């Protein structure tokens, strides 16, 4: 009799434990947020959606207990390393390092593309008139795997017959350093991004080539998460997508305010007038719709810049919230 009662108690206890565990697990899945969040991006107005969220304290206000850190790093490679090491949860980078990481087996996808941008190859020397004049010259891009370097190889393939024709002169410099070097005449060409290409143009440099001319309109930057992070903090990640989309809407509806935010973030210079003008420039369009990801990946793969796993479709490269955007 006593044995039976004991068995009943044990069974009842086990049942209660299971129900409680299931309840907390389900409750946890919807309410779970990370304790600590490091968001890393790079210099440039392409990261405006994140800069807006940072200055409006969107995440800090929504998640009061969370330890949130914003970091500006010089290249997508640096951010890639941080993500692999587990020190960065949200990394924003160009499509080049993102695709290389994907191909090499980092289990990550875009939670939100940030924009499309027409990237300009800038030169200053009046003797450099065509791409052929850049043979043997020094050309700076952010890194060898950057989207700028990828586009440069596409230009080299189309104009000079080989994607590797200009590789010998490639230098890795972050955008601000590259701009200084180009204007000071230390390098011959700088493949850069907004706003640096606008600034260089204002200060006497010329546009030798535009990325849209070779790839069509294409995604420039995206915010990236690991699949592990996404499955662990799904609702948090989906909210992150909505926050980024809201910041992008603000850029469209209130460029004036956004320009002020960018000026503040840049420490006062360039001015908001400049930023407002640049936001309106057709060379940059803020959108969470990815475009040309597969075109970029296919070219990189064909020219040995993407060793490893190829995505079979653009939807392999993005998380569920991005899928309805009808990208490519």
């Amino acid at each position, binding site marked *: 009799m006593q044995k039976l009662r004991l068995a009943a108690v044990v069974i009842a206890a086990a049942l209660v434990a299971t129900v409680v565990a299931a309840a907390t697990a389900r409750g946890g899945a919807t309410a779970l947020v990370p304790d600590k969040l490091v968001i890393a991006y790079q210099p440039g107005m392409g990261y405006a959606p994140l800069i807006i969220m940072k200055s409006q304290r969107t995440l800090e206000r929504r998640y009061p207990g969370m330890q949130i850190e914003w970091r500006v790093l010089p290249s997508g*490679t640096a951010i*890639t*390393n941080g993500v*692999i*090491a587990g020190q960065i949860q949200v990394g924003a980078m160009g499509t080049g390092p993102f695709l*290389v*990481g994907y191909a*090499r*087996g*980092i289990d990550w996808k875009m939670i939100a593309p940030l924009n499309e941008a027409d990237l300009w190859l800038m030169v200053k020397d009046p003797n450099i008139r065509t791409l052929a004049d850049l043979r043997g010259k*020094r050309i700076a891009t952010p*890194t*060898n*795997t950057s989207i700028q370097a990828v586009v440069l190889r596409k230009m080299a393939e189309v104009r000079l017959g080989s994607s590797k024709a200009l*590789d*010998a*002169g*490639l*230098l*890795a*410099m972050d955008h601000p350093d590259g701009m200084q*070097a180009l204007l000071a005449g*230390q*390098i011959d060409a700088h493949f850069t991004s907004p706003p640096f290409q606008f600034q260089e143009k204002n200060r006497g440099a010329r546009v030798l080539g535009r990325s849209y001319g070779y790839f069509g309109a294409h995604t420039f930057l995206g915010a990236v998460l690991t699949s592990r992070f996404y499955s662990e903090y799904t609702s948090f990640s989906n909210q992150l997508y909505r926050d980024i989309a809201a910041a992008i809407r603000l850029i469209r509806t209130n460029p004036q305010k956004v320009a002020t935010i960018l000026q503040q973030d840049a420490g006062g210079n360039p001015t908001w007038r400049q930023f407002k003008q640049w936001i309106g420039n057709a060379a940059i369009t803020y959108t969470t719709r990815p475009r040309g990801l597969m075109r970029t990946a296919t070219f990189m793969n064909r020219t040995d810049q993407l*060793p490893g796993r190829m995505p079979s479709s653009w939807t392999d490269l993005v998380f569920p919230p991005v899928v309805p955007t009808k990208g490519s």
Partner: protein
Amino acid sequence: MLLAIFVGAWAAYAAWSEFGQNDLLFASPLETAQAFWDGWRDGSLADATWQSLRILLLGVGIGASIAVLFTVVATLTKVGEDALSLLTAIMNPLPGVAMLPLAMLWFGLSTKAVLFTLANATIWPIAINLTSGFKTANPTILAVGRNIGLSSVRLVSDVLAPAALPNAITGLKTAWAFGWRTLIAAELVFGVVGGEGGLGNYINNAKLYLFTPQMFAALVTIALLGVVFEYGFTLLERRTIVKWGMQRS
């Protein structure tokens, strides 16, 4: 035996620890050996090594020539001696790479900047060692040299230089070690020139494309070169100063 234990521990770490199992972070001995073999077979590692060694030899060569010149002047004149001791006191504690940003500003983003940094990193250890070699030369023999009427130049070349040989070799050894570290570091910082990169550049590029085994293979290459050079210097010492009884083996 020790090496086997070391490689065993390495393999075990790669196989069992969570960090070691992550292919993007850590390469096992087998993967490293594979990358090493592939790199040497397709010539990419050989090219990088050759490029690094070429610049190293050139840089150390320039540095050593300048160092010898400085030391000779310093030995022959009082002003030169003071100037050299002042300069070495300032420059020698400075890590070689620290000069790189300045060199980049002066010489642009070119091999010249690296050569300048290398030469600067090697001049001072050689100069210090040579000077102390000259100073510790046997005064009796020096006096004999003066007595038989040798000119200052011949005094340096025939009396002081052979006497300072052990120090010269030590200086060269230090310079090589300094130069090698400076070069790899410079290539990593510089990390740039796609077509003519050395081993530092090779490591950087492997990192860009997340080829961790290649990074390990380049490190193994650097370590092996270190061993080879060390052995070369030991041989040189054995053939010269040990054989001539200036230093015991």
